[in-house]
């Protein structure tokens, strides 16, 4: 088990693939996230690419205050990702609900719905912050990475995932 854990640890940390989800944002942070993939900041040169399916992704990059309509979809996307997975809440609205906290159709920040590994406040978040965040998540704190890896259930029969 130790060896497999070590192998996973070695495997994660390079070229994480991200999936981006808008859970009720004004699009400011979404555009900045996509901006991170364009030539000025260019996430792709360090191996990060945006995927269309949560099953292909390691990191869920999520923006927006979670609305009642998107809550179920957000949980589903989180469940569809395979371990080890990380969640980054982009923007003040994703962290706490932002200016929209208290609106009748807004539940609040993302951590009221799914567990979040990293919070990026800002309105909106600059692409450099997103780059820095992904880097810190995977190379910085060993605790965050180990927590995600330890969540993986390696014993027993496959459960169809």
């Amino acid at each position, binding site marked *: 088990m130790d060896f497999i854990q070590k192998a996973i640890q070695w495997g994660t940390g390079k070229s994480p693939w991200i999936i981006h989800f808008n859970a009720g944002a004004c699009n400011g942070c979404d555009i900045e996230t996509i901006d991170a993939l364009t030539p000025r900041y260019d996430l792709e040169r360090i191996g990060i690419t945006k995927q269309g399916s949560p099953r292909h992704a390691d990191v869920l990059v999520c923006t927006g205050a979670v*609305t*009642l*309509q998107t809550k179920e979809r957000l949980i589903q996307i989180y469940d569809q990702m395979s371990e080890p997975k990380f969640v980054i809440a982009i923007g003040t609205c994703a962290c706490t609900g932002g200016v929209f906290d*208290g*609106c*009748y*159709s*807004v*539940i*609040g920040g993302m951590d009221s719905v799914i567990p979040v590994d990293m919070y990026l406040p800002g309105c909106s978040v600059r692409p450099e912050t997103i780059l820095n965040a992904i880097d810190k998540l995977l190379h910085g704190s060993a605790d965050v990475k180990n927590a995600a890896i330890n969540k993986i259930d390696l014993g027993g029969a496959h459960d169809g995932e």
Partner: protein
Amino acid sequence: MMESEEKIVQILCERFPFLQGRIAARKAKRIFSDALSKDEFMQIVAFIHDELNFRRGHLVVGTDEGDNLGLLYVLSNPEFILLNLRESVPKANPVVTTLSDLYPSLMMHERELVSLFGVIVEGLPKGISYPLPDGWPEGNYPMRKEWNPDYFNRNTLAYDPPQEKEEQK
């Protein structure tokens, strides 16, 4: 520069005497009416669309007037003049007729009135409710003044106002 607007007001008042003193050109490109009843409103709509050429519907603004619900229809003609007609219906029986056959662009706004204010729009084609989320509890009309989002539990989707408020209603 307000000739066209004044002329339109004049034509309307001549054709529908009940509009006298209840419709005015407040400034350039803005004609506002006072609150009209459902019958009065339906009488003038066809004329406005066919004869006066107000063929574009921009939006319908729902307002809570206490005992009544107000619907402000914003229409425009090829000269880009905005004609704002206010229809007023009692909150206890908020029934209006759809304008979506004459103004298809108002359909989504009428759906919004149905969800957010509880207006009953007769003749509105069947469609997906907008904009409230799936599972929104029946009978809860968030844009009415008496509905308070502080008493709304977003996890259970239950609305529990405190007892005193219930008795007051």
